[in-house]
């Protein structure tokens, strides 16, 4: 319990550090900060916007006062104003969070479930052709650029075969009277290709990792004990082997959550998925720096939280760690 409290505190400090780091980045950016922040706004409204930003950030104040104001603002959900969207940044970001999380978690579930299944099957026949092919598969999965995988999937399944939708999260022609179930099914169809593009990067490496860890577990004495008890292979694999074999995978999950969300930016861009990544891409095009910074903060915080969650999950799965330290 104490260990978890320490972890939570550390996570909070990390989030603070990210915010400070962001501020320093803006501070160091060349040219007028106001120019950097209002970036894409031209014409009549510009001076007005610049004035607004100056007041908001209190640019006449010394560095540390500005910093503290900035931290306070961010912690209360105030990420400033977007001259492009002509709205507070938080209003632009809020509706984008759910689609990104949905995509990321689906991709993660896809990669973990299929990867662990493939890896476990391969571990039961470690010398088979299938098992050897896994390494090649892992190398290929790693080497394919995400956006390229996405475009290939669009070409093959969306255009040539015309099986699945390739753009957005819902069919625009879906009648507004459509019920929740119909809407959810439509979203699910739109999710398939983005999920695969994003999941494939991890799928192969999880399969390889779980194969190695399953191989080790299957040779352990407690698996022999479970078999000697008279358990059939199903419970031996699922109850006794799997729970031990997923421990190393959980560790990797947390560490790779950042990579997952980075990949989501590319996948969302390819599939016009209305998430944070797509917003980040648009913000790059329009030089909407405030939005970019806010997304960076939000996503970093998400990664830190994901790390915290995996850390706790790790303790739940492995009693040696949970009860081991006082």
């Amino acid at each position, binding site marked *: 319990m104490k260990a978890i409290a320490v972890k939570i505190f550390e996570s909070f400090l990390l989030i603070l550090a990210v915010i400070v780091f962001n501020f320093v980045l803006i501070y160091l950016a060349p040219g007028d900060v106001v120019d950097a922040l209002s970036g894409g706004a031209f014409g009549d409204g510009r001076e007005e916007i610049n004035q607004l930003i100056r007041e908001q950030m209190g640019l006449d104040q010394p560095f540390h006062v500005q910093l503290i104001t900035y931290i306070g603002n961010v912690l209360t959900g105030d990420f400033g104003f977007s001259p492009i969207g002509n709205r507070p940044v938080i209003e632009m970001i809020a509706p984008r969070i759910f689609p990104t999380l949905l995509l990321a978690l689906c991709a993660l579930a896809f990669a973990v479930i299929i990867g662990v299944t493939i890896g476990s099957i391969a571990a039961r026949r470690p010398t088979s052709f299938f098992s050897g092919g896994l390494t090649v598969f892992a190398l290929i999965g790693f080497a394919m650029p995400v956006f390229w995988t996405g475009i290939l999937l669009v070409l093959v399944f969306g255009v040539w075969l015309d099986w699945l939708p390739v753009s957005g999260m819902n069919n625009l022609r879906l009648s507004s009277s459509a019920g929740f179930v119909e809407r959810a099914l439509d979203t699910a169809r739109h999710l398939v290709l983005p999920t695969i593009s994003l999941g494939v990067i991890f799928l192969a490496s999880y399969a390889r990792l779980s194969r190695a860890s399953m191989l080790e577990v*299957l040779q*352990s004495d407690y698996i022999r004990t479970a078999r000697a008890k*008279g*358990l*059939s292979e199903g419970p031996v694999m699922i109850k006794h082997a799997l729970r031990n074999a997923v421990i190393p995978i959980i560790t990797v999950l947390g560490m790779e959550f950042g990579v997952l969300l980075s990949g989501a930016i590319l996948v969302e861009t390819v599939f016009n998925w209305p998430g944070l990544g797509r917003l980040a891409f648009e913000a790059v095009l329009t030089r909407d720096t405030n939005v970019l910074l806010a997304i960076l903060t939000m996503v970093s915080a998400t990664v830190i939280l994901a790390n915290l969650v995996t850390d706790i999950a790790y303790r739940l799965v492995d*009693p040696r760690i949970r009860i081991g330290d006082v």
Partner: protein
Amino acid sequence: MGIGSTQPLLSIRNLTVRFGTFTALDNLSFNLDSGKTTAVVGESGSGKSVTALSVMGLVTLGTRAEIDAGEILFERKDGSTIDLLQCTEREMRSIRGNEISMIFQEPLTSLNPVYTTGDQVMESIQLHQGLTRRSAKDKALEMFEMVRIPRAEKVLTDYPHQLSGGMRQRVMIAMALSCDPKLLIADEPTTALDVTIQAQMLGLMKELQDQTGASVMLITHDMGVVAEVADDIVVMRRSKVVETGNVYDIFEKPEANYTRALLASIPRLGSMTGKSEPELFDLVLEANER
């Protein structure tokens, strides 16, 4: 062995097991009598553990082992006799842990680290006796008390890493005996334990055997252990049976040279007086000559 008119509990006949080109068991035959402790002795690699795993039907699981020939006749709880090698996997599972159970050499790694000891013992009880979780728990507690685990109630909810090696082995024994098996196979059950714990454990096993009437197949390389608990002995060497017999007969007048060498390997207090290092015994000399 097989003395008297009663049918043996377990009868291994002409069993041959190969790992690729290596013959792990070569035309092995011996009987195990009901209610007795039979020690299977021999050096490591002589095929003792392969014998045990063959009886359990676990030797071909996840290994390259193949059973070439032979039969293993076993008298079940209901009085019928079956050949374990001809059993379906399903039948075998109803025998494993229920009619024949096994405890292993390494108590430290033989329990699953992510489940409590209680869960692991109850799993066996629920599987074979069809009890509810609640009564399985009562039974597990009863077993823990039987193997003299102190504060049994608490140990039920402990994870294996919280217990000492001796306690973990007691849990293993409790698990093995929980379904009242006719045969308990103990593969070097005391080797990994401290000497003092070893003695306790042997005493406990002997006592439990008297209580439950189970037969024990004790696999060991330690003739000292054999002298203490065994009724019968099967001496194995290089995948073959060298000699079988009653423990008194064999200790009294061993017939095979190898058995004599094994017996000579028991260290005796004072046997090293005046010597700077232990003597090599015949076995090693013979092995070197080959």
